[in-house]
């Protein structure tokens, strides 16, 4: 046998070995995260219960119902639209594992784009997981990608033309928050959007909140974005939050910015649509070392420097923006929105307990609220 043939066989074996090792690591990310039903969870369902085409699909996300026997309104909280924005999913998990509803209903989807949790973005050096030490051991959650896994939806077009005829970048065809109101015969991501829209319509959600995070250099940050029908409610909530020393920018949903929750949930259902953003350095473009610590603490000297240069839209110092602050902001804003909804629409009152305050989360740490 020629020498170059022997080398070729050796390299082919090496290729398969590398593929096997990396493949095991990638397949590991397909395993679902453990989310424990708290004392307030009365039942669970799946997106396929609202849009049967998703039955058997990876993205058939679990829906958690926290219901009271006392009639009232229905609040829907969506986490995990973008799995590289961990405070979104973690806020939803904290609610599922701790909240008890005394009037009305609270419905939570913690991992909206489940497919996007099954991988992360190439060339971003993102951590695969984030961990929390609890009294019962280590809890692990996946840190995913902004977009649907390409093994579930491919290929990306050069330009994604949404249902309203608007041109977006090709990759946005896998972005859950560009595909609303969804399309039952559209691509994989648009079908998930459609299932969520069907869920909102069939469950008659009165208030629907979509949780996100944003890069510190992105203008819409530490913000509440409201559909025009939610404007009064959001305005009152922002003033209440300011009285709690929590600064939120109020942004009105642009009428022609289609495909996003704060626009299409409001336009294609009767719900009051809200989107919220907190500050996450691990998804930003100016970040330095990217690892689990950055995702959880937000400490990054590059962002401190950027803040000194006046390039950011949030204050940034060596303390970063820890996950407790980000989850605390989301949950406090959610509670404040619900309290104001109870004032605006007493017949749609939703009352609950077990949700820690902003101060409690920051003092005790996020992990102390995991089962």
């Amino acid at each position: 046998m020629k020498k170059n043939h022997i080398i070729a066989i050796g390299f082919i074996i090496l290729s398969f070995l590398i593929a096997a090792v990396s493949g095991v690591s990638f397949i590991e990310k397909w395993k679902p995260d453990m989310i424990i039903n708290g004392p307030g969870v009365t039942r669970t369902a799946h997106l396929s219960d609202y849009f049967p085409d998703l039955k058997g699909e990876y993205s058939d996300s679990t829906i958690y119902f926290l219901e009271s026997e006392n009639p009232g309104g229905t609040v829907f909280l969506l986490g995990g639209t973008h799995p590289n924005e961990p405070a979104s999913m973690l806020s939803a998990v904290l609610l599922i594992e701790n909240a008890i509803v005394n009037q009305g209903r609270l419905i939570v989807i913690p991992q909206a784009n489940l497919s996007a949790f099954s991988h992360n973005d190439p060339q971003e050096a993102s951590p695969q997981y984030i961990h929390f030490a609890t009294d019962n051991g280590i809890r692990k959650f996946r840190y995913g990608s902004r977009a649907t896994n390409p093994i579930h939806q491919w290929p990306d077009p050069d330009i994604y033309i949404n249902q309203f005829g608007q041109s977006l970048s090709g990759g946005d065809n896998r972005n859950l928050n560009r595909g609303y109101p969804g399309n039952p015969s559209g691509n994989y991501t648009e079908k998930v959007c459609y299932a969520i829209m069907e869920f909102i319509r069939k469950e008659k959600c009165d208030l629907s909140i979509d949780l996100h995070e944003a890069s510190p250099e992105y203008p819409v940050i530490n913000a509440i974005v409201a559909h025009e029908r939610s404007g009064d409610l959001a305005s009152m909530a922002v003033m209440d939050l300011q009285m709690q020393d929590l600064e939120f920018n109020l942004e009105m949903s642009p009428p022609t910015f289609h495909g996003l929750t704060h626009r299409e949930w409001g336009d294609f259902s009767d719900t009051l649509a809200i989107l919220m953003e907190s500050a996450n350095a691990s998804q930003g473009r100016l970040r330095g070392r990217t690892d689990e610590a950055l995702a959880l603490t937000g400490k990054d000297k590059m962002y401190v420097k950027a803040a000194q240069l006046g390039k950011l839209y949030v204050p940034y110092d060596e303390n970063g923006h820890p996950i407790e602050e980000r989850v605390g902001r989301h949950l406090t804003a959610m509670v404040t929105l619900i309290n104001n909804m109870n004032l605006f629409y007493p017949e749609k009152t939703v009352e609950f307990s077990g949700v820690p305050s902003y101060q409690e989360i920051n003092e005790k740490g996020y992990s102390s609220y995991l089962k």
Partner: protein
Amino acid sequence: MLTIIYRLIILFISILIVWDMFKEKNAWNQLTCAMVLVPFILRMLMVK
């Protein structure tokens, strides 16, 4: 159906890469082929 065709195309290109590795005399170029082969294997198996 489209996925099957896509995977067959990947298999075809992977065979070309392997074929080239056997024709190639320069070990560094063979190593380059081996690196290119890894994502093709993962994609063919729809792992990544």
